């Protein structure tokens, strides 16, 4: 986990370790350089503690005006890359100004940190949490080291969870009625439903159910909306006739979904939609989109 920063060879190695790093659950996260790395998972109001060790390069001393560790919650909008907006920022001073001649270890602890937002890595926006160690120095640039971690927050099972039922159609062409059993799904849920064909005058080739993610960033006139189709699931092959009903059963687990995020810190939103698409023989597409809300259900050990 050592990470050397800067073009110049830094005079010391900084290592950040979590106190329960061996046992804590880890997830893989995509880094900016495209590589994936395993990072520990926390949730809101957990205590984050660990150690920072500074190990100067052999025979060198590190002169500093102070060592501190920060816990940052940042939102990075890609149209404004490199510019992080910190919505959470906690600081702990680790050392008073002085020199470090040999390896020195500092324990740290942020207790009951409020981390209301989940880590998110989208197309136009990134929300991340990091621990950053800074060795402040005079005259030369500070030495910094940071460590990512991931935050996931769990929601309880919603009390209201109505089914989505709707009749749509094009006059004298196509009338269908579809039904999804719920409007709120957890990430490993199954979408169960049915589609009734009330009137079919077009030659349908197939029917798909798409899961789409809409990510809107910015606000006001600078709103960017990015829609991404995460899943295409063919429901039906061939042309149905009047009175047919086609079952839907779509397992969500294979797809990389996140909970629905609404207006995170006034910076961005992530919403999910089910898009029912009928394709006719001339490849015309008829669709109807319905928002569903996703939530993260605390995984009990039984459901692995």
């Amino acid at each position, binding site marked *: 986990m050592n990470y050397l920063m800067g073009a110049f060879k830094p005079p010391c190695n900084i290592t950040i370790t979590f106190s329960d790093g061996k046992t804590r659950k880890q997830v893989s996260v995509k880094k900016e350089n495209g590589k994936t790395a395993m990072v520990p998972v926390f949730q809101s109001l957990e205590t984050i503690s660990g150690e920072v060790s500074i190990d100067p390069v052999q025979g060198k001393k590190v002169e500093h005006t102070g060592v501190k560790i920060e816990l940052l919650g940042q939102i990075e909008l890609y149209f404004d890359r490199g510019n992080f907006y910190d919505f959470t920022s906690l600081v702990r001073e680790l050392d008073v100004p002085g020199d470090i001649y040999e390896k020195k270890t500092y324990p740290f602890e942020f207790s009951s940190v409020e981390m209301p937002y989940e880590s998110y890595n989208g197309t136009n926006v990134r929300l991340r949490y990091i621990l950053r160690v800074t060795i402040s120095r005079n005259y030369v640039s500070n030495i910094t080291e940071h460590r990512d971690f991931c935050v996931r927050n769990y929601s309880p099972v919603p009390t209201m969870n109505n089914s989505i039922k709707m009749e749509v159609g094009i006059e004298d062409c196509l009338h269908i009625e579809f039904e999804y059993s719920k409007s709120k799904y957890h990430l490993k849920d199954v979408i169960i439903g049915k589609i009734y064909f009330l009137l079919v005058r077009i030659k349908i080739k*197939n029917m798909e159910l798409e899961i789409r993610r809409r990510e809107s960033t910015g606000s006001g006139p600078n709103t960017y909306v990015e829609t991404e189709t995460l899943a295409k699931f063919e429901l*039906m*092959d*061939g042309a149905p006739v009047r009175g*047919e009903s*086609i079952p839907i059963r779509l*397992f969500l687990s294979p797809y990389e979904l996140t909970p629905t995020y609404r207006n995170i810190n006034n910076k961005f939103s992530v919403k999910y939609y089910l898009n029912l698409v009928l394709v006719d023989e001339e490849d015309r597409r008829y669709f109807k989109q319905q928002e569903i809300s996703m939530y993260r259900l605390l995984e009990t050990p039984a459901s692995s």
Partner: protein
Amino acid sequence: MLSELRTSRLSPHKYYELYMRAFDELRKLEMFFREETTRGNCSVVDLYELVQHAGNVLPRLYLLCTVGSVYIKSKEAPAKDVLKDLVEMSRGIQHPLRGLFLRSYLSQISRDKLPDIGSEYEGDADSVNDAIEFVLQNFIEMNKLWVRMQHQGPQRDKEKREKERSELRDLVGKNLHVLSQIEGVDLEMYKETVLPRILEQVVNCKDELAQFYLMDCIIQVFPDEYHLQTLETLLSAFPQLQPGVDIKTVLSQLMDRLSNYAASSPEVLPEFLQVEAFAKFSSAIGKVIEAQPDMPAVSAITLYVSLLTFTLRVHPDRLDYVDQVLGACVKKLSGKEKLQDSRATKQIVALLSAPLEKYSNIVTALELSNYPKVMDHLDNSTTKVMAVVIIQSIMKNTTCVSTSDKVEALFELIKGLIKDMDGTQDDDVDEEDFKEEQNSVARLIHMLYNEDQEEMLKIICTVQKHILRGGPKRLPFTVPSLVFLALKLVRRLQGQDGDVVGEDVPTTPKKIFQILNQTIEALYLVPCPELSLRLYLQCAEAANDCDLEPVAYEFFTQAFILYEEEIADSKAQVTAIHLIIGTLQRMNIFGVENRDTLTHKATGYSAKLLKKPDQCRAVYACSHLFWVEDQDGVKDGERVLLCLKRALRIANAAQQMANAARGSSGSISLFIEILNKYLYFFEKGNPQITSSAIQGLIELITTEMQGENATSDPSAEAFFSSTMRYIQFQKQKGGSMGEKYETIKAS
């Protein structure tokens, strides 16, 4: 591989090949899954979910079915739930071809896993219902897809599609087969659930091809017993089918099957009665015909044929049923022209032949009042064919038709053969065929028989009435039969002469002879003189035996008149005169006067024959007329000699004529023949024939043979020498005959 199954470019046939390959692979996959789950690498539930992650519906469902099969086997979930899920999910494929194959795959893998009674997958109480429900559901869906195929694509490919569809029909039918093999489908279940559901589907799909095939399937796959018990339900579906459905074939099949069933196990017959199979069939057919006014006659008739066959096999004792069927058929045909459609007529022939074959007794058929009515609808040539069939049937079974009523009916049936049909001129009738037909009629006449003479007489009258209408072409064939039939009766009467006395006996030979006279007269008018002549003579002889002198005389007179007036051909004359002579010789009832007249006539005619040898032979034959070897026969030696001498004279004349005409003496065989006659009468003791006369004749012959002009005639020589040998032999034999011959010198 599975994604390939998504193609829609292949014809069903090719698609099937593809499917089979995929099927093999899926079998391997299934085995792999099973191994994996038993090894505990992953649970079958997970697997079941996992395969559903596949994005494309078709591969997903194939996989799902495959895992489903493993799932059921693992018994981790009740079979019925898995199956229900599978059949429900399969709805995702709405493309007919692909859907059919997918569902067929489903049905294939689930076949041995149905929660049937006695199956290891049997669940709680109503699991059979689940199994049935599953199969039915799958069947219904498949059928829908199959029917839908017809309506997709452009109109012009309709035929091709139809062909393709029939290639696929077994996929649909297999479900019914599976259904029939479920142990749990007992009669009750079948009656209450299975059949109504299937029929509902069949009727509702409104597709000819499907309806035809499925009805056929139902009939084929389920046991006969079930059909019998559900006949009403099953039959009620028929009138609701589409007009184009070939109901006749299906219904015939059903009836065939049931009648086979009845035939194979006689103990089920009561059941047939119980369910009133006949009445139901009959009304069903009626309704079908009603419901399909455009049905061609041939189909309707075919239906009746099947019904008839069924009736004959199941209720052979119910003649009224048979009649009813025929009656219904008549009703259907009535108001129409005679059938021109050759297939329809063929069917009618079948319809009419069936009872004949069954009862092997035409008499039964004759009781069917509608039988001739049906025949009326045939065209002439077919009527004939049918008549021949009837006759053949009688012949084959040597049935005796024994009452005049029946004879009347019978002749009504075969009237096509008996007389010319109105308005048709069958010039083109093959002569051979015609003869064949008429011969069969003639044979038929011989089959008529009744012990009771009175009835027999009636029969004869009836036959006479009918055949006299036959026209000139037929009479020569039929009249002889009738005559002989009548004569047979005469002989019978004669046989019991002593017993029957009294005026009130209506059947007398006299009466018969009157009839005969009329009959032959008709023949004589044809004209067919030779035949009539023979018949007259025959009758005369019979009359002779009955001691009816006037009648016999009358017949003879007729014969002579015929001879005089009608027989012109010299050869025919020769034959005729010999016949007359032969018959006359046997007559013994004539008084002297009558006899003289007749013999005189005969002799006279003999001498008037054209050719000398013929004259000669006729005259010496006449000699027999004067010498009858009976106790009280005529023995007029003098006139015998007279005849023979006359014959000799004629022979001589013939010889001379031959000499004059050809320069060589003709055959001497005439002489030798006369010699033989001499010898005969000599032996018989005619005093007028003396040994010297014979001696003279022998010498004459010898001279002739050695004469310069004699042409050598080996046969004549052989004849002569054998005659001489005979004389020698008689001599050597001794006794009275030997003494008699002693005086003849054989050179």
